[in-house]
């Protein structure tokens, strides 16, 4: 027992002290923070003045085209051919040609508006122009039907659903699909990421011991299985350290960066990218943020976190020993490909399946994937926020533990023989022989 602790200590310290670990740990959050900040920065930095010329032959649209931020609309009453010539020599960003129509032929506009530009236009500018035209067309049509825009606006309503999940005991919980899905995806992806990143580290570590020929010296002092498990556990702790530092540093850096780079008086929430509309909407209602926290509490956040930890560790341990076995079986990194396949396929499958499963968390695909240990760490993590039955969770946990024992048994047998084999072409048939060999 003492010896396995020595091994864990060495595996941990030798990696944590490496320059590459320190660089990755510091660089990771900076990259992450950068990734998070870029949209905000891009949004504020794009202040180039743009002029868009409009040739409105029916003269119906002038009132609708208001200048937005940095975009100025210039209406020119001239023949389109002349304007085109002038546009060619001008600095103007784009030229919009709205051909002459009247109220009867207004539908023609749907396909006859032309935009001339010097270079491809951004999607948001296209949207801006077409929205403006659509609104005018709409208004005209509404008038024809005897309705006004105000009337339409008044009849609109915005319903927000508060899903309440009725427990069998009569308890009520409100559930929010968006938050649940966010949690699921984040949890599942984190596990996927962790298994791959640190599993590969285990594999490379085993290969290093094998190719540097130190392994025979070590296994004359400890059992090969101890060496393998010590390595897997040591690297898991490296992973935890790195993740913890990443989370802390990302938080610190993004807080600092936000306060430094963005003047709070400048932040106009509606300016944020369209995707964040939902969040900004909730932020605007003072209760929005509180609601999220309420719902997180309702979902029993401690339970989910504990489960996350279990599947995180369980999934890693199960795959980690398989990665170790691959490392032991081969002589060089180039030979790993053929043995990596059966490990990567279930992992990639789980992530793909996770997306379908989120649509329908109670499907039989969801059930089986969250029970089978090879996919359960990622898939069950995804299902957890949707309250799967307790017995399914229990079964999946027990099977994951059995799966872990099974894979480490298999891996241990391959490992034990493989680390002492050099210069032999290893196939699946040889692996099978090693497993059966006593």
């Amino acid at each position, binding site marked *: 027992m003492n010896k396995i602790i020595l091994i864990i200590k060495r595996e941990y310290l030798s990696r944590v002290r490496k320059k590459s670990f320190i660089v990755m740990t510091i660089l990771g959050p900076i990259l992450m923070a950068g990734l998070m900040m870029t949209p905000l920065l891009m949004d504020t930095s794009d202040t180039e003045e743009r002029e868009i010329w409009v040739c409105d032959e029916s003269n119906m649209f002038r009132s609708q085209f208001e200048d937005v931020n940095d975009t100025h609309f210039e209406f020119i009453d001239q023949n389109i051919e002349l304007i085109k010539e002038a546009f060619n020599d001008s600095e103007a960003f784009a030229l919009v040609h709205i051909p002459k129509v009247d109220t009867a032929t207004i539908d023609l506009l749907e396909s006859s508006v032309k935009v001339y530009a010097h270079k491809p236009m951004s999607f948001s500018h296209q949207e801006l122009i077409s929205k403006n035209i659509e609104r005018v067309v709409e208004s005209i049509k509404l008038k024809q039907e005897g309705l006004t825009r105000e009337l339409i606006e008044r009849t609109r309503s915005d319903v927000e659903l508060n899903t309440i999940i009725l427990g069998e005991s009569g308890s009520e919980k409100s559930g929010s699909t968006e938050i649940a899905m966010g949690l699921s995806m984040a949890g599942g992806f984190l596990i996927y990421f962790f298994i791959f990143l640190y599993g590969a580290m285990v594999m490379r570590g085993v290969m290093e011991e094998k190719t540097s020929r130190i392994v025979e*010296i*070590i296994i004359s002092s400890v059992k090969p299985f101890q060496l393998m498990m010590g390595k897997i556990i040591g690297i898991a702790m490296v992973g935890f350290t790195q993740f913890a530092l990443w989370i802390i540093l990302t938080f610190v850096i993004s807080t600092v960066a936000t306060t430094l780079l963005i003047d709070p008086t400048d932040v106009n929430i509606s300016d944020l990218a369209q995707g964040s509309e939902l969040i900004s909407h909730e932020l605007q209602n003072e209760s929005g943020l509180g609601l999220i926290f309420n719902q997180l509490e309702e979902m029993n956040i401690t339970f989910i976190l504990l489960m996350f930890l279990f599947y995180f560790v369980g999934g890693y341990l199960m795959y980690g020993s398989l990665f170790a076995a691959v490392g032991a079986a081969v002589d060089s990194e180039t030979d790993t490909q053929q043995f990596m396949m059966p490990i990567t396929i279930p992992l990639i499958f789980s992530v793909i399946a996770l997306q379908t499963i989120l649509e329908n968390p109670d499907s039989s695909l969801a059930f089986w994937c969250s029970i089978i240990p090879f996919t359960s760490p990622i898939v069950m993590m995804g299902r957890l926020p949707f309250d799967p039955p307790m017995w399914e969770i229990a079964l999946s946990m027990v099977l994951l533990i059995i799966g872990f024992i099974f894979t480490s048994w298999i891996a241990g047998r391959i490992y034990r023989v493989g680390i*002492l084999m050099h210069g032999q072409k290893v196939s699946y048939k040889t692996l099978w022989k090693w497993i059966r060999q006593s």
Partner: protein
Amino acid sequence: MKVLEVQSISKSYSNHIALDKVSLSVTEGQIFGLLGPNGAGKTSLIRIINQITMPDDGAVLFNGAKLCADHIRHIGYLPEERGLYKKMKVGEQALYLAQLKGLSENEAKAALRVWFEKFGITQWWDKKVEELSKGMAQKVQFITTVLHKPKLLIFDEPFSGFDPINANIIKDEILQLKEQGTSIIFSTHRMESVEELCDHIALIHQSRKILDGPIDEIKEKYKQQIYKVDFSSTNLDFLNSLPEHLKLITKNKHQAEIQIQNQSPASDLIRLLIDQSDLKAFEEKIPTMNEIFIRTVQEN
């Protein structure tokens, strides 16, 4: 006293038999040469003694008790295929390997200091292994093998990779360890070092032990009654007409090798030679280990 007793060990892998009922015993303070051609089963046997693999059949006794995990700290092993963690510092690594053998950190540090000073390599402590030459790394490996004062040391080709000077340093260390009562199993192809160092040898060929005994006895047994004779004159024609029971093996200007093919005493031969020539030196030819090795392997 017997430190190690290997009792009728058999081991087979899926496609071949590595060891077939091999027995041997190593006594205290003995250097035991484990010989055999490549693939004979030496490494398999050594791995079984180190508990890296388990035998299919038979038993290994260490100090009279069945070999178990507690014995690991009394065995030191320098494998043929050896290396160190390249990115790890020399001192840290030696400390780690010593602790794996069961020494405490302080014991290991103290012992390492002694050995590092002895070899004059204290300044290497904070160097990474990748900065060392092959010979330097071998020295470090030797230290980590003997550091925990094992009762039984197993060296598999210990001199490979050493220049003659360093090989001599290691040889002297091995002899000193023997003086201190350490038993040493010594596996090698270099027969001259076997003659120099070993007290006892066992020869394994095609998974079976075909020769086992004290090196002197074996040599005695393999003597072929060949005598090396030096003459003063160059006229050795009389050698071409020797009596029937004497066979001329080689002859050059002043020298000849003659084999007595019946059991008649060597003194008869001397008498005959004195009568017919001016004999200068007469010596029985002792077979070298190299010859014994080749002969036994070919005969089997």
